[in-house]
C-alpha cells in the first residue's frame, strides 16, 4: 500500500472500567472505502470518533497523512476541516434552515461565502427545493442528506459515517445510500460503520469485522461474506444475514 491517508496503531480506549477498543491497527488508503461491521457495542462508533479526535484515545497513535493527531494537546481544529463526520442521529441544528446548517462552518471557519458551491451540493443530492426548510420540516432521509452536505461543504478529504442509515425508516435508507455511492464514484476516502450488509458487499473496497474492541477479521467483501475464516465472523454474519 502507498502511504495511507489514515493509520491507527495500537489504539485503545476505555470508558470507565469498560475497555471499548483493545489495540486497533488499521490503514486506510486515499480513495478507499472501508466498511466497519460488527454487533452493537463492538467498538465501531468509538473507533470512528477516535479517528477525528472527538473521543481522545487512551493509548496508541492516529496518523493522518503521517501526523499523529492523537498526541495529547494536539490542535484538532484544522484537522476537523479535513475529516467530515456524519452521525446516526443527524444532529442538524434545529434553529437553522437546511442552507444555514450547511453555510455556517464555511462562513465562520473558512471565511468563505460558499453560496454557489453549497447550492450545487443541494442540487446534486436532490434537495434544491428544500434549502429554506427547517430540519423538522424534512424527512429523516432528507435530514441525513443535509447532514452529509454539511460535512461535504467543508471540502473534507475523508468522510467518517457512523451508522447513518440506522435511524431511518426502511423506505428512506436507499436515498442516503445513493448519496454514498456518488461519493464513492468521486473517489472520496470513506470509513463507514454500518449494518447494511448488502450495501457493504456492493461498494466496500474492504470490510472490517470488529468484535469486542478488536479487529477480528478483514478483507475484500467477497471473501468476508462468502468464506469468512473466523468462527465469530461466521456467527455474526449468520445472525444478521439469516
Amino acid at each position, binding site marked *: 500500500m502507498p502511504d495511507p491517508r489514515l493509520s491507527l496503531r495500537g489504539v485503545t480506549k476505555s470508558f470507565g472500567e469498560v475497555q471499548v477498543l483493545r489495540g486497533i491497527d488499521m490503514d486506510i488508503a486515499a480513495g478507499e472505502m472501508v466498511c466497519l461491521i460488527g454487533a452493537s457495542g463492538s467498538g465501531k462508533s468509538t473507533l470512528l470518533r477516535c479517528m477525528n479526535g472527538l473521543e481522545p484515545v487512551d493509548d496508541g497513535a492516529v496518523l493522518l497523512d503521517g501526523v499523529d493527531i492523537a498526541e495529547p494537546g494536539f490542535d484538532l481544529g484544522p484537522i476537523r476541516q479535513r475529516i467530515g463526520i456524519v452521525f446516526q442521529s443527524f*444532529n442538524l*441544528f434545529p434553529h437553522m434552515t437546511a442552507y444555514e446548517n450547511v453555510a455556517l462552518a464555511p462562513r465562520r471557519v473558512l471565511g468563505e461565502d460558499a453560496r454557489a458551491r453549497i447550492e450545487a451540493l443541494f442540487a446534486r443530492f436532490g434537495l434544491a427545493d428544500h434549502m429554506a426548510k427547517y430540519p423538522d420540516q424534512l424527512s429523516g432521509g432528507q435530514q441525513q442528506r443535509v447532514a452529509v452536505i454539511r460535512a461535504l461543504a467543508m471540502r473534507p478529504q475523508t468522510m467518517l459515517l457512523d451508522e447513518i442509515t440506522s435511524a431511518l425508516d426502511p423506505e428512506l435508507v436507499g436515498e442516503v445510500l445513493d448519496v454514498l455511492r456518488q461519493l464513492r464514484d468521486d473517489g472520496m476516502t470513506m470509513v463507514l460503520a454500518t449494518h447494511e450488509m448488502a450495501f457493504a458487499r456492493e461498494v466496500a473496497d474492504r470490510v472490517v469485522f470488529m468484535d469486542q474492541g478488536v479487529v477480528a477479521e478483514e478483507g475484500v467483501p467477497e471473501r468476508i461474506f462468502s468464506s469468512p475464516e473466523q468462527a465469530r465472523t461466521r456467527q455474526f454474519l449468520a445472525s444478521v444475514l439469516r
Partner: protein
Amino acid sequence: MTRRAAYEARQKRRANMIAGVSTAVVLALVVLLVPLAPGWEAVRSSFFNGEVFVRVFPDLLRAFVLDVAIFAWSVPLIFALGLAIALARGNTNPALFPLRIFGAVYVDLFRGIPVVLLVYLVGFGIPGLGLPRPWNSPYIWGTVALVLTYSAYVAEVLRSGIESIHASQRNAAICLGLSERDTMRYVILPQAIRRVVPANMNMLVALQKDVALLSFIGPVEILRQAGIFKSLLANFTPYVAAAVIFLCITVPATRYADYLMNRDRDARS
C-alpha cells in the same frame, strides 16, 4: 351527530351547568355575607371609595409610567449581565477560573438577599459615600439593586438552558471545525435562549412588581404616589387603585408566559 358526540355534548352541558351553579352560589354568599361583617361599612369607605378612586386614578397612572420606564431600562442590563455571568460560570478555561468563581459567588450572593434589603443597602449605602450629583440619584442605585438581583436569577435560568442542549449538538459543531466560541454563539446559545423564554417571562413579571420597591428610597413611582394620596385623603383606596393598575399589566403578561410554556411543552411531547 354520532352516538359518541351526542354523549360528549350531554356530558359537557352537564359539567357547564354544575360549574355555573357553584360559581353563582359562591358569589352570592360573598356578596350577601361580607357586608354583614361589623366593619364592612368602614372598610368599604376607606378601601373601595369610588369618588377617591376616580380622583387618584389618572395621577397614579402617570406615576406608573415611571415604573414602566425603570423596568424598561433595567431589562437590557439584566439580560446582558445575566448572560455574562452564565457564560462566566460555564467556561472551563483554567486561566479564567477566577471568573468562574466570581460568577458562582455573584449568583449565591444576590439570589440570597431579599430584593427589598438590597434596595435599601445599595440605594442608601452607595449615595451615602457622598457622591456628587447626579451619581447620588436613587434612580441609578435603585436600578443597580434590581439589576444585581435579577441578573443573578436570569444567569441561572440561562445556564440551565445552556446545559439542557444535548451534547450531540456541540459535537456536531466542533466536528465541523467551529471554535468553542462560535459553537456557543451560533449553535448552543440561540437554542438555549429560546428554550428559557417562558421562564424569563415569569422573571419579567416579577421584576415589574418589584420596581415598586424603589419607592422606599425616593422615586415617586406608583406605590409612593399612592402613599402620598393616602396621607392626603386619609383613605386607602389609592392602594387598591395601584393594585388594579399592576394587575392590568401583570395578568396578561403571566397568561402569555403560561401560553408560551404550554406551547413549549406540547412541542416537546
